[in-house]
């Protein structure tokens, strides 16, 4: 199986999982979904420089062919930003849960839903 097929499948699976989780009603799955999406995007951006094996990005002695270094720089920036954003989302949802007593994204507690056995409320 080619590396392109594997990477493309991985990106697709991560994106699908991310979208599914983002559409959940509670904040924890949504945060996980955002993390999945950002992993998928990082892979995607990385693959945009074309998938090549055994080539240096910047300089190596006696090498004629290089891989594109820019997507790697872009991915680095994107990783840092999405890491910070995920941290913000986690803190914010935790704070919202502590202040409003519900972890529903819309802030309205859902009565009909089965309660988690470990739920203190």
């Amino acid at each position, binding site marked *: 199986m080619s590396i392109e097929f594997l990477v493309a499948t991985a990106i697709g699976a991560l994106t699908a999982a991310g979208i599914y989780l*983002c559409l959940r009603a509670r*904040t924890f799955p*949504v945060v996980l979904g*955002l993390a999945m*999406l*950002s992993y998928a*995007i990082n892979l*995607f*951006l990385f*693959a*945009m*420089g074309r998938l090549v094996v055994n080539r240096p990005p910047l300089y190596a002695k006696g090498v004629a062919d290089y891989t*594109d270094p*820019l*997507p790697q720089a*872009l991915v680095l*920036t*994107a990783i840092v*930003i*999405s890491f*910070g*954003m995920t941290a*913000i*989302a986690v803190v*914010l*949802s935790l*704070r*919202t849960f502590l*202040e*409003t007593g519900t972890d529903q*994204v*819309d*802030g309205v507690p859902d009565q009909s839903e089965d309660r988690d056995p470990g739920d203190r409320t």
Partner: protein
Amino acid sequence: MTALIAVPLLLPVFAATASLLFRRRRRAIGAAISIAATALLLCTNVALVMQAMRGEVIAYSLGDWPAPYGIVLVLDRLAALMLILTAVLALAVIVHAVLTGLDRKGWHFHPLFHFQLLGVNGAFLTGDLFNLFVFFEVLLIASYGLLLHGQGARRLTAGVQYVIVNLVGSTIFLIALGMLYGVTGTLNMADVLVRAGDLPVGDQGLFRAAGLLLLTVFALKAALLPLHLWLPRAYAGAAPTVAALFAIMTKVGAYAIVRTGPLVIGAQAGAYMLPAALGTMLLGFAGLLAARHLRPMAAYALIGSTATLLAAIALFEPRALAAGLYYLPHTTLSAALLFLLADLVVRWRCVEGDAIVPTPEYPGQRWLGVLFLTAGVALAGLPPLSGFIGKLLILEASLASVWAPFIWTLILGTSLVAVVAFARAGSTLFWKRDLTPATAGTGVRPNFRESAPAVFLIVCLVALTLAAGPVTSYMEATSEQVFDVGAYVKAVLVPLEDG
């Protein structure tokens, strides 16, 4: 003097850092630094407008790396216009925040405020798409902090939704950037345009898809129809002063559409945007009529008037764009004015908050009534103020379009709806008397100085009206410059040809 272009980015960074030093003690110094920096920013931006008015596109390469490899800041008439609008709005908002003591409700108001300005200014100046993404993130991170400033459960719930929506938006932005880079091998806006010209046929579809994804992201920022749902709750939940500053954020989306429209997205996008903009207009003004509180009302007024602007932009045609650009500062300033007024109403009448209900008479009620009347006239687009001229220009410019009947019906119809909504809200708030005796403890003497920033915004609106002649000719030149992609590309990429 091209280095002056970097000042709108550097100034907020230093102001944010400096004001961070005074977050707990001697807060007056922090506030003074913050206001002084914002005033200085306004002066710088006036100088930049002067530069831009000469008509050339000025590119400044950061670190002196030539264009497609390094990152460039590009100043043209459009960027200068947005910069000065931001500075005017920021000055009014920061003075209002200091006068009303909002900046003392948390520790980091001033640093967050300046990082927000950094993000907004950067988004207006940058000539690189990935850099645009980075500045979007800067302004979003700062806006998360500002949105939650002052806290409270309602604000937190609104904040969570706002953060999630924008994170998904950033993800789509990155997908679009990845596709563009994969197809063209560059992210410099001018270079993308150059290379898009000789793409193989197989890649052109991908390129168009990437352009439309970009449009989706910018439409999310500008709160266009299916993507507007985050705005009312977030803006009505934020402190009204902060929401007034956020009035510029929908315009960042509109700006990005105007900027990347001729360069990357292409005019075919207008066909998708125009119906969405018309629908948003209808929905925004309907929300105005349905609002029971002043802050959601201001949020819907912002959605509706931004949609009017987007409808003009969506025609992708120089005359309509010029009309839209004249309407742009008007809608920003008048929506911000309504948010500042909502804050004053909440502060001065104490008990009822911003609910649109009759109250016992309170001191300062008449003065607020006068200000509200002005804001209503401005947002509905009635004659004495610039909204009327803006809408008239948009109507006139849309005559050539096949969509003209819809645009005319909707703009005129929504204006009527706005008049009705503002008349009803205003008469309930300021005319009807609640005859029950005033509750004890409401006799706070309002501080009339607090309304100074609102009056400043009104003065700006009046100036915009009186100077309609010169301003419209500036906007026409701007719109020609936006569509003259050749000059843009030449200005940005010329250093490469020299070296």
